[in-house]
């Protein structure tokens, strides 16, 4: 009797995924998650697979713990670029079968990697409140100029991006930033330049903070993820971006190794990589599509806000994930040491 109940329960348990399959998609939350919901999750659910959205903060430790204990409950995860290469090397992610996703040539070269495919292009840029700031800052030297633009500066707590911005403010050409930063003197120069601004810096931890700082008038200028500015402006704020010397980067979809719904996960990724879905996404938040065919489906107004628009990308720096994968831990520790001085 008991055995048959158990058998029925087991059979039901195995049968369920076939009846109503569901996958867990993990994102970074906020305005970006809402755009993904509209462009990717909801349309994909119409194909019969339910999407459970989960938010995280980029902690690779969670994925590592899941993979190591072989209890993988996440099927598709959005990760930042340094983590794609690192996680792929360390065997945390499945290798992607591009024949099931699409034509590699349709995507930006940076978007295609063994374990991850680019979700969108985003940029860390300088921004200010158009209603409060007098004048128009255009370069990182302006960001450092507290006489011309008095007030606090918002910057991300950490070494990443800030060292690049410091070098550009110190007169290093955009194309040479990583070459200079890789040398001992270059790193020293970046920290020295950062020291100049230190008394004026108000550090932020989460991406939602800098637009709040600007709206509240806590800072005059800030570094910020460009999509957050777009989201604030959709709520009627007048925040402005200076695109010169912005650092653009991609987020990627990956499948944690051992995901029980690998096939459905791959189908989701393929769906989210189609030009139509990506164009819809870009309409909801100002992050650039990785599928170049999506650009043709966007009007000039949307295009003008994207980091990939020619005018915005003119003097932009591509985030060097190889450099940061090698030097990141060392530079972050040095940053902690610098901050304590």
């Amino acid at each position: 009797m008991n055995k048959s109940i158990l058998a029925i329960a087991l059979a039901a348990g195995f049968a369920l995924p076939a009846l109503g399959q569901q996958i867990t998609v993990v994102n970074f939350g906020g305005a970006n998650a809402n755009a993904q919901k509209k462009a990717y999750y909801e349309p994909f659910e119409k194909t019969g697979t339910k999407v459970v959205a989960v938010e995280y903060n980029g902690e690779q430790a969670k994925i590592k713990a899941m993979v190591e204990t072989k209890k993988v409950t996440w099927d598709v995860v959005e990760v930042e670029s340094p983590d794609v290469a690192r996680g792929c090397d360390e065997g945390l992610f499945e290798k992607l079968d591009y024949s099931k996703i699409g034509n590699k040539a349709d995507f930006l070269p940076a978007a295609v990697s063994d374990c991850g495919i680019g979700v969108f292009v985003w940029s860390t840029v300088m921004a200010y409140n158009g209603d409060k700031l007098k004048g128009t800052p255009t370069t990182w030297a302006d960001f450092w100029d507290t006489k011309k633009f008095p007030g606090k500066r918002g910057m991300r707590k950490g070494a990443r991006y800030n060292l690049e911005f410091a070098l550009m403010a110190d007169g290093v050409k955009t194309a040479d930033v990583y070459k200079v930063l890789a040398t001992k003197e270059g790193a020293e120069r970046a920290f020295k330049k950062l020291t100049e601004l230190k008394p004026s810096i108000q550090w932020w931890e989460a991406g939602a903070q800098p637009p709040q700082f600007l709206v509240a008038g806590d800072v005059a200028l800030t570094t910020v993820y460009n999509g957050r500015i777009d989201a604030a402006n959709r709520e009627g704020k007048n925040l402005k971006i200076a695109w010169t010397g912005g650092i653009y980067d991609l987020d990627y979809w990956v499948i944690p190794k051992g995901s029980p719904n690998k096939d459905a996960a791959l189908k989701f990724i393929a769906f989210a990589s189609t030009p139509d879905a990506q164009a819809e996404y870009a309409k909801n938040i100002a992050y650039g599509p990785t599928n170049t065919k999506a650009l043709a489906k966007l009007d000039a107004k949307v295009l003008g806000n994207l980091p990939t628009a020619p005018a915005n990308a003119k003097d932009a720096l591509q985030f060097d994930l190889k450099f940061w994968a090698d030097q990141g831990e060392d530079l972050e520790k040095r940053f902690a040491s610098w901050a304590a001085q």
Partner: protein
Amino acid sequence: MSSVAASVSGAGDLPRQLARADRARKLRAFVLTLPLLVFLLATFLVPIAALLKRAVENPEVANALPRTVAALDGWNREGTPAPEAFAAIGADLAALPDSSDAGALARRLNSEVPGARSLVMNTFKALPLPGATPAEQQAGLLALDARWGETKYWLAIAKNGARWTPDYLLASVDLRRDAQGRVERMAPEQRAFGRILLRTFEISAIVTVWCLLLGYPLAYWLSTLPARKANVLMILVLVPFWTSILVRVAAWIVLLQSEGLVNHALMWTGLIDKPLALLFNRTGVIVAMVHILLPFMILPLYSVMKSVPGTYLRAAVSLGSPPLAAFFRVYVPQTYPGIGAGALLVFILSIGYYVTPALLGGADDQMLSYYIAQYTNVNVNWGMACALGAVLLAATLVLYALYRRVTKSELSLG
């Protein structure tokens, strides 16, 4: 049960039966506490043991590069090693069953020498090496990546050949081993954790002092009130205590921001004419931490004060002592156990604070736990995270021992 047993057997068995009954009682007591013991073992002692183990564990290089480690045995640690070592590393990398082993090796070496990650992964992807003799393989490796000619990468491999390492623990107090294995201080720009540990203690001490200054009068006042009123007011102390820390931190952001209530009120009264910077600096961290930790000071103080009879104070005053002197010389010494317990609780809880400084502090207000989280989540360098955790644990234990020494008593909550 024992009385029934005693009545049916002879009188000579009594001591034995009593002993048996006693054993049964002890066993029952033990069985009752067993769930708690298992719980403590599983959720407290085992994780701590695992943490301490991980802080000194170093399997990556020994597992992945056994031949290379053997080949580096006689190396004088200057220049580059013999060609045999180059051949050995080629053979070792080629023998790795999975690319994830190479990834683990790359991560381990990279935390020692920045750049080792790409060096190891590039080499791994380019295998096998051309050439039959070690000298040819050395040339092949150098042609593939000239960095193999640099001493620092070989040093990192040689240094980490053992399965156990003191390096993480040394790094967590700003020390390192040089090429010959001697312990030395790190370069100035790499020294961080000593200062961060000091900062952690400094913030905790300031928070403790403020909690005592604010909590003592309040607890005293509560202890003098009739029970009904005291209970009502105690609920006011406890309600914030029961509220989520994140909620309270968010509330402080609303209050302390430059356009927030506190600044508006101060400007309205004319005390200041431009907003004070109360947030994203040390002030914000301390204000919020004092608020969150205050109940941990008030509760032990209150329970001790409740047990201090008011008659002593009255006796001192009636014998001619001025009230203030009587308070400080007669009353306060009787509350020392409460002060000790409250201060210790607040201090030890403060040491581990993470969320509050992360959200309300600047880059130089972060406490040790912030860096533990960074090594766990961002760098995925769990050895370093565990070593920092071990330092925090050791600091807490030392403080507790010190407390025992000073007060010569067990931690009592009243």
